């Protein structure tokens, strides 16, 4: 009898708990008619002794800001704060959400807790933020490097406008927005909004796609080398490349050396690369087979990619420069997409380092399994950046 009573009490408590927790109403954030936007801060100059009066390229993005009577922003529809210089690699998934311990955000949305894009035509757009479509006023502000949110800063620190402009975003379209230096001599900055089309193309999942942009500032390559304080990692690219370059692609299977090339894929001509930081058109996607290496088993491949950018009229077969030449007058700049993008080729190599374009990850019963991706290589002044977009893939089975 007392046992039954105890059961009754427990049962009542459980029912109460169910009711109590069922009462809260959740308002899900929803944006009708969104456009998808990803923002990069490509201002990659280093403030040093000679240019110490230049602003530190650490930004806040304000979409549809409200200004007070002095022109100082007090509120914004969308705020992307702590926007740091972008990292060499923009991965297919916003991985910094889980791994970063810094307040700095290498891209927007990146770590920001906002609504992100869905899987669109197979492509995972979780690195793109949902923004209401239509015309927006967008302002990029310089901000001091600290973890104080933008609107809590002292008012004198909220007045340095990098650019104040308007952009129009169409519904259900995918955009990348770049903050760029437009002119190296006048240090004029600007933005560059590109409407991506990879989700509309009929791309095969057994080919790896890549397109190239040279968004360098006008006059960078022509300037004196001493004026170019660049990232050490970008090899001979640090001094810039000429306005027009040819792209040659090679594939290798050997780790950190160029000893075992995939023979059908050595110095293959891909196309031309023209410097362009104004015209907003998507470059052509070039491709190579995921399993180009005949020795691979069709599940996993260890090939890595090398792109030789050479001035028009030059050929990799009779390259006048040696692989240790850092100064190539902008005529030759190799890019190695190898391992995690942090290790160099053995020996003195002048290649810029980027991670491998092929994503190897545990999927289904295979660990690892290689996936083809859609890539964008962007050259900005002396640095090079890789953005990888990947299709949704099967979860691992353990």
């Amino acid at each position, binding site marked *: 009898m007392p046992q039954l009573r105890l059961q009754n009490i427990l049962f009542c408590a459980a029912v109460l708990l169910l009711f109590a927790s069922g009462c809260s109403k959740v308002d899900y954030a929803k944006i009708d008619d969104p456009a998808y936007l990803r923002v990069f801060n490509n201002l990659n100059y*280093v*403030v*040093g*002794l*000679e240019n*110490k*009066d230049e602003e*530190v390229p650490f930004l806040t993005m304000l979409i549809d800001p409200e200004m007070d009577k002095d022109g100082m922003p007090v509120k914004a529809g969308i705020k992307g704060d702590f926007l740091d210089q972008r990292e060499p690699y923009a991965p297919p998934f916003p991985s910094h959400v889980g791994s970063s311990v*810094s307040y700095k955000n290498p891209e927007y949305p990146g770590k920001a807790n906002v609504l992100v894009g869905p899987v669109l035509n197979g492509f995972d757009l979780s690195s793109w933020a949902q923004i209401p479509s239509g015309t927006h006023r967008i302002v990029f502000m310089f901000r*001091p*490097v*600290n973890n104080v949110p933008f609107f809590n800063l002292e008012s004198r620190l909220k007045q340095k406008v990098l650019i104040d402009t308007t952009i129009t975003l169409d519904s259900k379209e995918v955009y990348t927005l770049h903050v760029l230096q437009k002119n190296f001599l006048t240090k004029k900055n600007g933005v560059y909004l590109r409407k991506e089309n990879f989700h509309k193309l009929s791309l095969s999942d057994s080919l790896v796609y890549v397109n190239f942009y040279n968004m360098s500032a006008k006059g960078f390559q022509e300037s004196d080398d*001493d004026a170019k304080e660049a990232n050490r990692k970008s090899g001979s690219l640090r001094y810039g490349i000429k306005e027009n370059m040819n792209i040659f692609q090679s594939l290798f299977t050997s780790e950190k050396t160029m000893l075992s090339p995939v023979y059908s894929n050595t110095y293959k001509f891909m196309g031309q690369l023209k410097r362009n930081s104004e015209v907003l058109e998507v470059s052509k996607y070039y491709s190579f087979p995921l399993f180009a290496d005949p020795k691979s088993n069709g599940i996993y491949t260890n090939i890595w990619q090398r792109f030789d950018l050479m001035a028009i009229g030059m050929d990799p077969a009779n390259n006048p420069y040696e692989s240790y030449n850092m100064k190539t007058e902008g005529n030759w700049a190799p890019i190695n997409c190898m391992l995690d993008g942090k290790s160099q080729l053995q020996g003195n190599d002048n290649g810029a380092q980027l991670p491998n374009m092929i994503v190897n990850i545990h999927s289904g019963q295979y660990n690892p399994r290689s996936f083809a991706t859609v890539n964008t290589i962007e050259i900005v002044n002396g640095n090079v950046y890789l953005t990888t977009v990947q299709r949704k893939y099967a979860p691992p089975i353990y």
Partner: protein
Amino acid sequence: MNTRKSITQALLLIPVFLLLVLPSCKHNDLEIEKENENFRLATDFIKNNYDMTLFYAAIEKVGLADKLRENGPFTLLVPNDAAFRELGINRPSDFSKMNQDSLKALVQRHILTRRLLFSDMPHNGVDVRYKTMAGTEVYASMAGYAPGNEAFAANELYFNGSPVTRKDVTLANGTLHMLNKVMKYTPQMTIQTWLLARPKYSIFIAGLKRFGLWDQLAATGSFTVFAPDNEGLKAAGITEASIAEMDAQKYMGTRLFGSYILPRTHFFLSDFEVFRTNNGQEFLAKKIDNDTWYSFVFTTKNFFTKVITGGINLRTAPAYPNEVYGSAGAEVPALSDHLFDNGVLHEVKGVLLLPEQALKK
């Protein structure tokens, strides 16, 4: 029987009673570290600090002692006594010899009318400007951390090139940072007027005039000047008389005297420490205008005293293969980092190039 029982009970209670009473008799000396809650006001703190006696004397002299007892908040950038001694101020009475208005301005330039803690500074901030009580601005720079190395921060602070040896001292009405160098800023004065008022630079001035480099120092642009004094120039055989005899057409004036001036830059010697930490820039090789040679600036910092000294030399190229010519520097940190509205001047001793080396071939 009953009485006896109650007595036994009472006897039993005695040890219990003793147990209760006796432990309270023992007083263990329990030391609890208690944070000081009685922070002093700015004036009183400085008055009680044996390494700030000269700055206190200056405050007293210019009548700011009462002001600094007010609510504030203030941030005091206090040079220690050694810093004043480097300038030849050894005892409080030496302040009487100074112009009282400029002394007052000097003290006021060491006081910010706000509370500025180290944590208020932007990370790796360079030349962040803060208003002083004198109405001028002070340049604050932070040697924070190398890119991607936030876990191993150096976190050193500099005001107008003066290193902070002790930061964030709490005051009841603000905060205090201790400097090992007096900040030297002369408002409404150009580098040219300052040099002109000092006879120990007469040879340098004569040289600049001879080669048409003098007039620019009155302009607004920014300049960093390493001014060699007469003593050093005379030791190398350069005098006003020898300069007067020179035929300006036969010498490369840009090398001979232009190398001491770095136009379009303004840096304190501490900026080298700041950029060494923040982005690994160790030195500055600046090409001389209208010449192919380079002025090369370098600094060293004493690990213990945080004293920064530096100098300049002349070289044919920034790095090897090159030829390095003479160099000039200063041992006393008080000689460097004179701030003006059109740049920074560092007093040095030495010669970069002898006249015969600058002859056109």
